[in-house]
């Protein structure tokens, strides 16, 4: 694996992965609505949009170290 991969970058990357796997049973509901949309798809949309931010942080972090 790439030499620069550190525990911190793996931990950062794991956040969206766990949110979209282990987190699903906890987000499996209709209420509360988010902008009128049911909770489950809104939760997934939130994590899709957040994932690039987490990965960008990993990228920056690996660049620096």
């Amino acid at each position, binding site marked *: *694996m*790439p*030499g620069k*991969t550190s525990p911190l970058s*793996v931990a950062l*990357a794991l956040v*969206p*992965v766990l949110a*979209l*796997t*282990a987190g*699903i*049973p906890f987000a*499996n*509901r*209709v209420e509360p609505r988010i*902008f*009128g*949309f*049911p909770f*489950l*798809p809104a939760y*997934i*949309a939130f*994590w*899709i*949009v957040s*994932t*690039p931010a*987490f*990965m*960008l942080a*990993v*990228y920056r972090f690996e660049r620096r170290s």
Partner: protein
Amino acid sequence: MNAGIAVATIAAVLAATVGLGFYGVRRVTMDPEQFIVGGRSFGAVFLWLLLAGEIYTSFAFLGAAGWAYGRGAPAFYILCYGTVAYVLSYFLLPPIWRLGRARGLLTGPDFFVAQYGSRKLGALVALVGFVFLIPYVTLQLTGVQVLLRIAGYGAIDSLGAVAIAFGLVATFVYGTGLRGAAWASIVKDALVLIAVVFAGVALPVRFFGSPAAAVDHVLARYPHWTTLSGDASANGVTWFVSTVVLTALGFFMWPQSIAAIFSAKSEDTLRRNAIALPLYQLMFFFVYFAGFTALLVMPGLTGPDVDQSFMLVVQKYYSPWILGFVAAAGCLAGLVPASVQILAAASIVSKNVLADAFGIATTSAEQTRAARALVLVVALLAFLFWVFAKTTLVGLLLIAYNGITQLFPGVALSFAPVRPSVTGVAAGIVTGIAALAGFALAHRSVVGGINVGLVALSLNFAVTAALGYLAFRSVPVTAERFE
């Protein structure tokens, strides 16, 4: 008349796209490296187009809407697995790319040969890739056939239409290789994006005022449509999580995905793509809105017919020009990925089975010729599969993914500090596929709510580890370690 307008629109769009593909390769000489991995020269934007072009297929266009229509929340798994796969790809792809660059690798099976020093293992991996690409290519064909039938307002013989469409795509791959497909992806992605936004916004707005209002109507009629059932049923929450894990691991195991990795100009290109690609997943929300709208406007479709959901709404309520345009975008979403998949299936058999395992067609020129001949063979096999084994888009994709993910343990463990033996990896793959065959014969898609593909993958891992590390001396084999 209507059918004429719609079909002429499709024909014009397809012809323009194929023309662009040929234009893109007009001054390129076709050696295997150019034909299969585009000369390893694709920068971030071109690679993005190629990866997106491979991933957003007929399944995304029709299958995802079909699931939103026929099943509801289980369709959301597509959003999750792509995103998880991109995160994984950030770490997994650069070392695969480095190995490819250092050893001049062309195909997915080449990776196994380089890591484990066994051409027989490479041939086994090539056969697995080949076999499970056939249903994937057939999925694209089924999608194209659905679209042509709808665009023909019942007047088109679908067999003939698909034969023509497929002849076109086979000629296209034969002539242009991977670079042509990447060019065609430009048109395809642009049109698909427009068509999907149209279907996901214009349809719900026309009937209900807004996408959110359409979802409200769905919930009023089907209160559980956007949540998963909690039990161990076929599409419950356990199935959802296990399917996300399974398909995310399998995502980059496809021979065409590995060819795309090798086509990258640098490993940084791959990282930047991994960061940005999740955003592309948002496109699926439009597809779901289209499926939900169809569920309210035209309820009653069942079985494989759900794949037609929103296209039937477009057919009934919009002009043949619009129908033709949307269907053309959908056809490209089937034909462009099909061309890349056919190319990958042909190249792994010509390189890793014919040349490496049997010593047939070993020179560069012979290999390009063999790969081109095999393009026609693969196209024909997928066509026959379509003729004889008709099933739903969903069914086809799950068959394909359950199979290809069985390659994951061998890829992942090749980066472990101590590698398993060749026997262990091969036995693991065979075990995983035998288990899948068993589940298929027993008509099981879940065990205790868990996707059977993940069960087979666990058995595969267990056998790979047991035979690979315990029964035989685990290996430094002949290949040197690659860091």
